[in-house]
């Protein structure tokens, strides 16, 4: 009888440990996947939205790689600052700083490079894993250097 109780106890403990481990792993993977997918989708769709002649540029904003979208006299900077993907929408020449950007979602780093007419975006989440995508704006993209 004691053996049966011991078997019951061991099975219960094993199931609890397995369940908690799998749950933790599944939630962590889900969060990482969400961060990468959302960040890349957000950036790609913002670039497509601003895809007009002279509207898309790649540069550096206070040392961080940035995408610069120009719409008339207004400009939108997309960059990673202090562990967050941020969007700064302002009138050109206003002089706002990186800290003034609106946080979009947590992100460890964002790398933006120009490769033959395509913008290569690489995002790194808090787990350290990186995901990349390339997008070639129909109206071209220019490099503006440091902003």
């Amino acid at each position, binding site marked *: 009888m004691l053996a049966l*109780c011991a078997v019951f106890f061991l099975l219960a403990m094993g199931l609890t440990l397995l369940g908690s481990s799998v749950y933790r792993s599944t939630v962590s993977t889900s969060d990482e*996947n969400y961060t990468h997918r959302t960040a890349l989708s957000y950036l790609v769709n913002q670039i497509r939205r601003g895809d007009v002649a002279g509207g898309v540029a790649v540069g550096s904003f206070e040392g961080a790689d940035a995408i610069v979208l120009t719409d008339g006299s207004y400009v939108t900077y997309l960059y990673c600052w202090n562990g967050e993907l941020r969007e700064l929408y302002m009138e050109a020449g206003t002089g706002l700083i990186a800290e003034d950007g609106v946080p979009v979602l947590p992100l460890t780093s964002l790398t933006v490079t120009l490769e033959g007419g395509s913008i290569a975006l690489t995002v790194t989440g808090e787990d350290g894993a990186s995901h990349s995508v390339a997008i070639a704006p*129909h109206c071209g993209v220019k490099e503006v250097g440091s902003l």
Partner: protein
Amino acid sequence: MKNPVNRSTLFLTELILDLFIFIVCTAVCAGLLITAYGISRESTELTRAVYMAQTAAEEFRTGQPIGVVAEDDFVVTVDAAAANGLRTAEITVTAKDGRVLYTLTTACAEEVAVP
């Protein structure tokens, strides 16, 4: 003469039956947990495959020559064709074990001017 039923035997029998039911439930739960873990991994793979296919589609549209590209644990295959002024491509992302993760069909005009 009837033998009186031993109470301990009855209790033991019930305990064994309960243990058996518990083992069945444990097996079902373990199977669900393993399935959840597998689905989670597939979701991550699919996300990466979609973005790799999107990248290949963008490179195809800009006219860059691409055929088969191996990256990490994935293989991106592009089957391009051109007819009637239209360039088409079928982009397939497969895992190293041969599973097809994502397929994307794209097309663009042959004369695509990229400034």
